[in-house]
């Protein structure tokens, strides 16, 4: 992965401005590079706020729903590593109950099962 892009993602991960979530979503999760998508998804999970977690849980083709198993598993591992799982559990509940896509609902249910272990 490009070193400068990696540094930018790291900077956006710790950035206090919520606009950083928008940049990570637009430029990171939509990237054609698997490594960039993986790093971006992990960055969004690390932020551990509603808007960032929503991106990697409810969007098809992003985060835990990414077509790349590496990206999806890496995102799930990061979710499992969170100390405070309150917000992620809340979003998973809503996704399981209300999302229109069955695949997304199943993925969310799987992650919730893993968190319960």
């Amino acid at each position, binding site marked *: 992965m490009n070193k400068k892009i990696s540094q*930018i993602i790291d900077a*956006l991960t710790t950035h206090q401005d919520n606009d*950083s979530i928008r940049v990570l979503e637009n*430029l990171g999760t939509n990237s054609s590079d698997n490594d960039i998508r993986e790093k971006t998804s992990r960055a969004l999970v690390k932020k551990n706020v509603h808007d960032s977690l929503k991106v990697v849980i409810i969007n098809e083709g992003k985060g835990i729903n990414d077509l790349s198993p590496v990206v999806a598993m890496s995102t799930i591992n990061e979710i499992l590593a969170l100390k405070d799982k309150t917000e992620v559990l809340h979003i998973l509940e809503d996704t399981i109950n209300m999302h229109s896509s069955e695949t997304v609902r199943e993925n969310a249910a799987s992650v919730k099962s893993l968190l319960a272990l």
Partner: protein
Amino acid sequence: MATIDKIGAILNTKIEIPFKIKARESIHTNPFKDSKFDGSILPADIFEGTQLKSQNKAKMVMSAIAGSVSNFSRKIVEPVAAFCNKVKTNLSNAFNYAKTTTLSESLSDLGNYISQKVSTMRKNAEMNKISDKMPVVDLEAAWINENKLMEAA
């Protein structure tokens, strides 16, 4: 007549005077004859006779040591002072040389050049350093720029 002759014979004979000093050296000797004191003072009593007692001998030895130490300190101080003067003179000469020649100007230019280069490098490093202190807009622009560079490559 015979009596006169006897008296004349008596007058011709040398009568030794009992108080006459035969040899002056035998009574008084110059104690400083073979000594070189170089200003050192020997406090030992030298009028006690030529045969020195053991106590007097020790006194003489100690006096000699004291004189030697005094001379030694005097001898060592002078070279130190000379050395300091020499260093002072050399430093002064070097300073004058540096002041009058173009070498000082060259060094000054070199120092300014290095300082400017380091300052520029530091500024560039700060500009290029990506951190969360940068505005999100700038980070976004940098990311887009990198994507363009990667596509072009």
